[in-house]
């Protein structure tokens, strides 16, 4: 089993290194894409084999080597494959494999094809380290690794020029990459503090040791650790107020958005909370957990509200990702860790599918993102239409589809915990989710063919790419059917969260409410946006001028606020400090150099080649010495 763990972990690494061989000025080479995809598929098979092993024989724990060992500090390079991590591994490698194959088609014409695969596989490797590590240090390494890969991939088209904020809120790929990276650095500081606190108080970073020792710690320390770790999770999972980077990260290539900014990396924060569930379910940190649930609920609603009016197809999907991450945190905060993980997996499948579908639309529309310019693409892109439809139904949470089971379970949990406010908001958000996801589908695939006037000639993706997306579509439909099996499997490791009899009794009604609201959302979207001819959608200038529309369009002015109150003062302060640095630090160093230069310049005049003047100088020097000696003697 040990070798399987290493195969699963290092296959993407080998793929990345292989693609890296064709770096630099090497021409586009189709082999890199296929080798990277094949190796990921191998990794996926190994993960599945490990999953089967874990089902039958329990978890696998391997220690590859000693990593850091200094004094009392001993951190081995170890990997833990248990129910939680193997679930993540299968999800990550499956989505990655599909995305890799998709990318061979999507990035076909890009001149940096080889570089792309090198980064993408490196990302998967980092993500696997993150989920498989058996200690917090390894987790942190993976955590930073995915951050770097995300930076590289968001800024993949770094050569694109900056555009003003009013025209494009994410300005440029390199700007967006830096924003994502810097904002994550802020959160990572919190995470690092949490890890230090753990080591300081417990003396180890191994999960099993740490979680065994936690109940004995003082309440204050536990709360501090929980808050610090959650700050880290907030950054990676883009929770308010560190959320602005996620929508801007859509500047990256669409496969990257699908893999990193929807299916895997952004769920790392949720994974951390699930992984640290022994900490977050302690009585002492119940306040923090409730805060997590409340924040998650807030973000779910907040992001969904912005998605209602967004025009950029990728932004809509990104905002829905934010919203769904909020759902996951709500579940995790309420103690239903396995439900959070279940939604994480289901979400990964249908959201990746949705993103890849959006990528197809973009590809067909020559990278046009504005859904106002699309419409009636159904005929031209039947395959993508079906996939987007399936993914949107799953996202909206209609029965039979995966999203229904997982999201409904979260909403039920909120009811079960007696947190009716959270429940109410989540139900409303479910309706909004259905509305905006179908708004986007109807806008792009139904209604008048607005693109014709603009001179686009859409065509669907390569056939093999559409076939490669099929596993995601199948899972987006069917993943929910395995809820009970999944629960039986995962609760060997996570706390088994059960609904009370009371909730169980009303479960059908709760489910019905959610479905009715979701269907209502879809119907409204259909009425408004899918019509043709006389019923066709027209721009509502009056609404677009209203305060609410402006508020939502400007993302509640949060990016503006950051720009005005954080970025600009910081820039001004930096410029001031730079001036001080130049005057004081540079100045003093320059002064020393200048003093030597000047003194040399002046004393050079002595060397005039005139023996007489040399003798004069010598005489003056000798006199000076005599006087000095005499003075020294006189003073004594």
């Amino acid at each position, binding site marked *: 089993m040990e070798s399987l763990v290493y195969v699963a972990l290092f296959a993407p690494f080998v793929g990345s290194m292989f693609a890296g061989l064709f770096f630099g000025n090497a021409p586009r080479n189709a082999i890199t894409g296929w080798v990277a995809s094949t190796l990921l598929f191998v990794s996926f098979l190994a993960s599945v084999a490990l999953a089967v092993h874990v089902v039958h024989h329990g978890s696998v724990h391997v220690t590859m080597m000693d990593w850091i060992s200094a004094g009392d500090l001993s951190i081995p390079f170890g990997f833990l494959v248990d129910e939680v991590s193997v679930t993540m591994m299968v999800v990550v490698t499956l989505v990655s494999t599909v995305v890799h194959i998709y990318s061979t088609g999507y990035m076909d014409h890009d001149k940096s094809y080889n570089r792309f695969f090198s980064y993408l596989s490196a990302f998967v490797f980092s993500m696997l380290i993150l989920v498989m590590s058996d200690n917090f240090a390894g987790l942190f390494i993976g955590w930073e690794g995915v951050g770097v890969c995300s930076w590289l991939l968001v800024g993949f088209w770094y050569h694109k020029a900056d555009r003003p904020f009013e025209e494009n809120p994410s300005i440029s790929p390199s700007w967006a990459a830096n924003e994502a990276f810097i904002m994550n650095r802020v959160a990572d500081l919190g995470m690092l503090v949490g890890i230090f606190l753990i080591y300081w108080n417990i003396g180890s970073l191994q999960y099993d040791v740490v979680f065994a020792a936690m109940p004995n710690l003082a309440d204050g320390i536990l709360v501090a650790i929980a808050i610090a770790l959650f700050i880290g999770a907030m950054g990676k999972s883009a929770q308010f107020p560190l959320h602005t980077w996620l929508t801007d990260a859509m500047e990256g290539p669409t496969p990257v958005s699908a893999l990193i900014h929807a299916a895997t990396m952004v769920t790392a924060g949720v994974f951390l909370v699930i992984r640290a569930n022994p900490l977050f379910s302690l009585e002492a940190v119940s306040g923090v957990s409730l805060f997590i649930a409340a924040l998650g609920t807030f973000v779910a609603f907040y992001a969904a509200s912005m998605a209602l009016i967004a025009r950029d197809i990728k932004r809509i999907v990104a905002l829905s990702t934010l919203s769904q991450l909020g759902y996951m945190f709500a579940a995790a905060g309420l103690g239903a860790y396995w439900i959070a993980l279940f939604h994480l997996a289901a979400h990964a499948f249908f959201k990746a599918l949705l993103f890849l579908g959006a990528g197809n639309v973009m590809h067909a529309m020559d990278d046009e993102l504005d859904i106002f310019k699309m419409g009636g693409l159904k005929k031209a892109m039947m395959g993508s239409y079906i996939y987007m439809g399936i993914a949107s139904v799953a996202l909206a949470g209609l029965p039979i589809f995966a999203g229904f089971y997982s999201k409904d379970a979260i909403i039920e949990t909120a009811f079960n915990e007696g947190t009716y406010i959270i429940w109410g908001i989540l139900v409303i958000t479910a309706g909004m989710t259905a509305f905006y996801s179908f708004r986007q589908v109807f806008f792009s695939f139904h209604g008048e063919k607005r693109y014709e006037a603009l001179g686009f000639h859409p065509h669907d993706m390569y056939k093999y790419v559409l076939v490669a997306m099929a596993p995601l579509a199948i899972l987006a439909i069917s993943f929910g059917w395995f809820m009970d099996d999944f629960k039986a499997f995962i609760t060997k490791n996570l706390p088994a969260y059960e609904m009370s009899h009371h909730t169980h009794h009303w479960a059908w009604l709760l489910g019905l409410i959610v479905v009715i609201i979701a269907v209502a959302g879809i119907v409204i979207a259909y009425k408004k946006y899918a019509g043709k001819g006389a019923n066709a959608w027209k721009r509502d200038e009056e609404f677009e001028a209203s305060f609410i529309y402006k508020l939502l369009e400007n993302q509640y002015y949060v990016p503006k606020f950051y720009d005005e109150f954080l970025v600009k003062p910081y820039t001004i302060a930096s410029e001031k400090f730079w001036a001080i640095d130049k005057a004081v630090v540079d100045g003093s160093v320059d002064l020393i150099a200048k003093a030597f230069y000047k003194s040399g310049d002046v004393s*050079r*005049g*002595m060397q*005039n080649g*005139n*023996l*007489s003047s040399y003798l004069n100088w010598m*005489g003056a020097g000798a006199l000076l010495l005599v006087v000095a000696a005499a003075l020294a003697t006189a003073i004594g």
Partner: protein
Amino acid sequence: MEIGIGHYLILAGLLFSIGFVGVLRRKNLLMLFFATEVMLNAVNVAFTAIGNYYGDLSGQMFAFFVIAVAASEVAVGLGLLIVLYKKYGSLDLETISSMKG
């Protein structure tokens, strides 16, 4: 009036000062040599006077050494001066300086 050590030393000091000023002020290389010769002999006077004052022969011995060294120095120095004169046609320090700092 008894002539004592004081007189000798004043004479030596005066001679040395004359030589020193000569070294500083003269522009002709040959004159510079003369001036250093004056300075050396001023020191010789001081040596012998002090040697005599203490009844110690080392002072006079030193004076002999200085005379011998000065003689050989003059021999070498004059040789160089002749070469310099042949090269520049003058022994004026202003004209034979070639370094411009």
